[in-house]
C-alpha cells in the first residue's frame, strides 16, 4: 500500500500524543510519591476503579467533568487508605500495593456488573477536543492536535509543574529530603510522615486522572482487565527515568512512539497475521528493557524508598 511518509509520521505522532498523557499523569504522581519514599504498586487497581467510576458517572450524568471529579474522588479515598497503611501502619508497600491492585481489579468489575448487568450502557460522552479549528499551520499537522482533549495538554503542563515543584519549591525539596534522609529531615523539623502522606495522596489523585483519561482515549467502554498492565509499566518508566519528571516524559513519549510505529508498520506491511504482530508488540517493552544498560547503571533510587519511617 502506498501511503505518504508524512501521513505515517503524522499518524504515529498523533497516536503518541493521544496515549502518552495516561502515563504522564500517573508518572508525575508516582515520581513525587517515590521521591518521598513511598511506592504504590497498586496504581493499576486505583486506575481501574477510577476508570469504572468515570464510565458509570458519565453514563448517569452525561457530563465528563462530573465523571472526572468522581474518578479523582474515588482514587483519593483508596489512596488515602493505602497511604495510611503504608506510612502510619508501616506495612510492606509492595505487598499492600499488590493487594490494592487485586481489590481494584475485582471490585471495579463487580460494581460495574451490578450497575449494568446486561451491558446495556449508553454511549460514553467524552471530553470534547480542545482545538477544533486548525488554521495556523499546515493542515496535516493539525491532525495531531485536533483530536486531543484538554487533559492531554494538562498532562504536559503537569510535567513542567512537577519538575519545578521538586527542584524549586520548599515543599518539593522537603519531599525529596524525606525520601533521601528522613532522619535528618525530621531533625530539621519536617513532619516526615505527613509529607509522605501528602505525596502518596497526590499520587493517588493523579492515578484517578489517569483512569479518567484512559476512558475514551484507549477504549470507549469498560471491559474486563482493560488496562492490561499499562499501569505497572509506569513504574518501569519512572525507574528508567531516574525519578526525574522530564525523563519520565521522554520515557513515556518514546515508549508510545515505538508502540505506535510498530503498530503502524504492521498495518502497512499487510502482515495481517496475528503471530507476527505479537512479535512486534514486544518492541516497546524490550525497548524499555534496553534502556537499562544506558540509564540503569546510574539509576539511584531515593535512598529510603520503601522504607517506612518511625519517629524517634
Amino acid at each position, binding site marked *: 500500500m502506498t501511503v505518504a511518509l508524512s501521513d505515517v509520521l503524522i499518524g504515529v505522532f498523533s497516536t503518541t500524543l493521544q496515549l502518552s498523557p495516561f502515563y504522564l499523569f500517573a508518572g508525575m504522581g508516582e515520581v513525587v510519591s517515590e521521591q518521598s519514599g513511598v511506592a504504590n504498586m497498586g496504581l493499576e487497581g486505583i486506575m481501574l476503579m477510577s476508570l469504572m467510576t468515570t464510565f458509570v458517572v458519565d453514563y448517569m450524568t452525561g457530563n465528563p467533568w462530573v465523571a472526572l471529579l468522581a474518578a479523582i474522588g474515588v482514587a483519593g479515598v483508596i489512596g488515602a487508605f493505602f497511604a495510611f497503611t503504608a506510612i502510619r501502619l508501616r506495612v510492606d508497600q509492595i505487598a499492600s500495593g499488590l493487594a490494592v491492585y487485586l481489590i481494584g481489579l*475485582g471490585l471495579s468489575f463487580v460494581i460495574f456488573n451490578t450497575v449494568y448487568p446486561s451491558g446495556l450502557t449508553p454511549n460514553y460522552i467524552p471530553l470534547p477536543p480542545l482545538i477544533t479549528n486548525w488554521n495556523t499551520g499546515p493542515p496535516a499537522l493539525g491532525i495531531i492536535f485536533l483530536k486531543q482533549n484538554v487533559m492531554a495538554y494538562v498532562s504536559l503542563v503537569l510535567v513542567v509543574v512537577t519538575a519545578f515543584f521538586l527542584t524549586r519549591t520548599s515543599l518539593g525539596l522537603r519531599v525529596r529530603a524525606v525520601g533521601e534522609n528522613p532522619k535528618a529531615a525530621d531533625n530539621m523539623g519536617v513532619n516526615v510522615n505527613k509529607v509522605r502522606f501528602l505525596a502518596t495522596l497526590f499520587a493517588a489523585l493523579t492515578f484517578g486522572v489517569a483512569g479518567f483519561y484512559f476512558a475514551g482515549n484507549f477504549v470507549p467502554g469498560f471491559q474486563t482487565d482493560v488496562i492490561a498492565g499499562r499501569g505497572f509499566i509506569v513504574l518501569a518508566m519512572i525507574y528508567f527515568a531516574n525519578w526525574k519528571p522530564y525523563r519520565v516524559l521522554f520515557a513515556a513519549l518514546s515508549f508510545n512512539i515505538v508502540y505506535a510505529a510498530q503498530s503502524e508498520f504492521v498495518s502497512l506491511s499487510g502482515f495481517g497475521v496475528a503471530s507476527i504482530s505479537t512479535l512486534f508488540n514486544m518492541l516497546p*517493552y524490550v525497548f524499555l*528493557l534496553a534502556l537499562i544498560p544506558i540509564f540503569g547503571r546510574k539509576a539511584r533510587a531515593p535512598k529510603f524508598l520503601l522504607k517506612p519511617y518511625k519517629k524517634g
Partner: protein
Amino acid sequence: MRANTQGLRWLRATAYNVLAIGLGILAGLLVVVYAGGNLGVALSSLFLSPIELAGGSQQIFVRFVLFYTMGMGVGLALKAGLWNIGAQGQLLIGMVMVFVVYAFLAFLPWPVLYVAMILGAALGGLLWIAVPTILRVKFGANEIVVTILLNVVAINFAFFMLSGPIKSAGTALGFPHSVELPAKFQIPGIVSSVPITYAVPATIAMGIILYLVVERTPFRVKANTVGESHETAKYAGISIPRVMAVTMLTAGALAGLAGATYIMGYRYELDIGSFSTNYGLVAIICALVGRKHMLGIGLASFFFAYMTIGAESMALSANVTTYVVFAMEGIMMFGILLGNYLTERRYAG
C-alpha cells in the same frame, strides 16, 4: 519462656491470618447477597462444591501443586528480600517450553523426552528470570520493574509461539491452540478412583526437601540476613550476589516447573485461556500467608486452592462475576498484612 513467646507469636499471627481470610470471605458473601443471591446456596458452593462437584477435587490438587511450587520460589526469593513478581511470566514460558521440547526434541525416546519436557519447562522459567537476576546482581536494577516488563513480554511471546512454532494444525478452527499431549506424556494419576496425580506427592516431597535444605541449614540465616540488611550481610562475609542469584534462579525454575505440572498434569494443551490467569499473584499471597516458610507455604497453597475454587463456584451460583474472587483475594492479602503489623507491633516492642 522464649519458646512460649515464639509459639504465642505464631499462634497470634495465625489467628490474624484466619481473621483476614474470614474478612475476605465475608466480603464475597456480601457481594453475593447484594446481587440477590441466596446466602445458603452461596455458602454451600463456597465450602462444599470443591469436594462435591465432578472434577472439583481434581482441581484442588492441581491448584495446590501450582500455588505451592510457585509459592516456594517466591517465598525463597522473599527471604533474600527479592520480589518475584514475574512468576506469572515464568509460568507461561514454562508452559510454552513443554511444547517446544515436545515438538523439537521429538526424536528422543519416550522416557527421556518426558523428563526433558519437565526439565525444559524449569529451564525456561530459569532463563526468563535470568535477565532480571543478572540486571539486579550486576547493575542493581530493581527486579520488580524488570520482571513486570518481562511478564508482558512473556504473554506476547507465548502468543507468538502458540500462533506459530507450537501451533497445532487443523484443530479448533484456527483458534491459537497447541497440540494435545497424548496419554504417554501426561502425568498419570496414582489410583484411578482418586483424582491425585503423581505431581502431588512429588510437589510435597520437593517441599520437604526444600524445607530441609533451606530452613534447616545455614542458608536460611544467610538469606534472611541478605534480606534484612546488605550491610550486615557484608560484614558477616556472606556473598550477596551468590545468595540473590541462587534464590532468584530457583524461584524462576520453580515457576517454570509449575507450568509443566499444570500442562502435563491437568490441561494437556495450551490455549489462550491460560494467559489471562493470575496464579502468579496468588502464589505471592501464599508465600506471604505461609510466612516464607517452605512448609507453611504448602498449607497456605492448599487452603487457597480450595478457597479459589469454592469462591468461583459461589460466584457462578449467585450469577455474580468471577472477578469477585480477585477482590476477595485482595482483601485477604490486605488483612494478612494488617495482621502481620499487629503481631509485630505486639512483639517488637
